[in-house]
């Protein structure tokens, strides 16, 4: 069964969109990811114009991350103070990212830049996280207790405050910087940024995995809500029908995902996430390296 999407200007299978939504919803509930890094390339792959894919994806991630956020907040898995500190940097980063996005658009290299940034950033994150989670899984099998190293690097920074929910007493400088970098990258890549934020919080900030998920959803929900409005108001590229179908699948998936997560240990979650991230890297990398079917392609000018 197909439905005509008014802004994208094309018919798409309803089941396909619900399925994509459901899949990314599971990720969002399980890993604290919006799932945009997977959905946006998939939407472009099935023929949705890239700008519409990015804009509609923002509305979909906003909804599914809010759903996940509520579920996690109820279990007390959100460090509100950490989330607000991250958002302070994230908002600043989003503005900076938008400026870079516009510069690249003017140079006409935005889509290649996006693909390359995806491959480099996702590749690095995926490999690092995969290796770390494998080590952690092996430690678990051998019965060695994991002691997170106290980050000596972060010692001596000013503005130290307690993050009670995360069980950390540290400077606000590292989380602000983390939020900023994630804000920049997520605006350029048109995603929520969870796949960078989650590992950064675990490895750089030492936040426990269970709290990371809920807290990163807070940042994702706020950033993508702002992005949805900006895309709709300035680019007219948000297809509500597309977003709606994706999120009907996603809200169901998010609930399933947040339940699955309770049954898994942190390193198992991280291992699965690394595998998924690397899968997307391979998919995008192959597209960059393989010769295109037709080297010529058409851009519609506004």
């Amino acid at each position: 069964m197909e439905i005509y999407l008014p802004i994208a200007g094309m018919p798409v299978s309803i089941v396909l969109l619900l399925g994509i939504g459901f899949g990314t919803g599971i990720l969002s509930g399980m890993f604290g990811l919006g799932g945009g890094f997977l959905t946006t390339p998939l939407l472009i792959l099935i023929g949705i114009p890239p700008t519409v894919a990015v804009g509609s994806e923002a509305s979909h991630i906003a909804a599914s991350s809010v759903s996940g956020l509520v579920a996690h907040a109820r279990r007390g898995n959100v460090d509100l103070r950490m989330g607000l500190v991250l958002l302070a940097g994230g908002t600043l980063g989003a503005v900076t990212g938008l400026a870079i996005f516009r510069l690249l658009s003017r140079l006409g290299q935005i889509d290649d830049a996006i693909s390359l940034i995806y491959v480099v950033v996702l590749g690095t994150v995926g490999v690092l996280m995969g290796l770390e989670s494998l080590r952690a899984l092996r430690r678990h099998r051998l019965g060695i207790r994991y002691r997170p190293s106290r980050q000596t690097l972060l010692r001596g920074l000013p503005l130290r405050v307690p993050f009670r929910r995360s069980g950390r007493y540290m400077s606000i400088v590292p989380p602000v910087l983390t939020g900023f970098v994630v804000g920049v990258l997520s605006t350029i890549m048109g995603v929520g940024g969870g796949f960078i934020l989650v590992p950064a919080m675990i490895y750089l900030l030492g936040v426990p995995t269970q709290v990371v998920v809920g807290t990163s959803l807070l940042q994702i929900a706020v950033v993508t809500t702002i992005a949805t409005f900006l895309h709709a108001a300035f680019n007219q590229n948000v297809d509500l029908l597309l977003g709606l179908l994706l999120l009907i699948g996603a809200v169901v998936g998010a609930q399933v995902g947040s339940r699955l997560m309770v049954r898994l240990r942190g390193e198992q979650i991280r291992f699965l996430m690394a595998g998924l991230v690397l899968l997307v890297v391979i998919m995008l990398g192959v597209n960059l390296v393989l010769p295109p079917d037709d080297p010529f392609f058409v851009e519609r000018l506004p």
Partner: protein
Amino acid sequence: MRKWRRAFALAAVAASGAVLAGSAPAQMPMLVDLANHRIHIDAAFTGAELLLFGALDRRGDVVVRVVGPPTEIAVRQKINTGGIWLNGDRVGVGTVPSFYSVAASRPLDAIASADLRQDLELDVRYQVRADVPDAHRAGFIRNFTRRGLYAVEQEPVKIIGGRLFRATVTLPAETPPGEYWVETLLFREGILAHRRINRLLVERVGFESFLFDLAQERPAEYGLLAVVLALAMGVTAAEVFRRV
């Protein structure tokens, strides 16, 4: 529904033929009409078939050209740069028809001379500015042809008994909305004998048109609607699943 429409249109063709045979309006070498003058893009739209039918006073060759609303495009070429395919420079192609199809009762080169075809700009390449590099022009035409937006001599105009004719034009799913010109040309002995133009309107209707117009005309309100809808859906879902 579509079948019914077609049956109705065929009946209309037969009727007009009967009228023609009876009164024989000699002053009118060709009569043309469309089965429907409006094509609606609704939620179930997956493309449409435009049916055109008409009658001739005596034998001739018929060419039907459909031209969609103009659109401005650019073409780029992927170039292998150190093993990776990157975008080359953007080449402006200018304003082109967003849809272009030509159907003929016989091969075009048998109907009209190259000069006449050029004068009438029948060939699709005349729709593209002359200063566009050949490779880019060909790349653009290939792209639009693959998407079903450009179709030259893919479906013939059928002439029945030398007097009646019908043509079907396939409009693909991504048919752009707007005003279309349907031009029917009658050729005799290689000379353009008659030309008729019909207007066709392709328009969004219902929910599709509501959303599209809102997004275009009131983007800020549309943005707020999108945000409120997203947040409401998210919270509702979380509530619903808490009780399960």
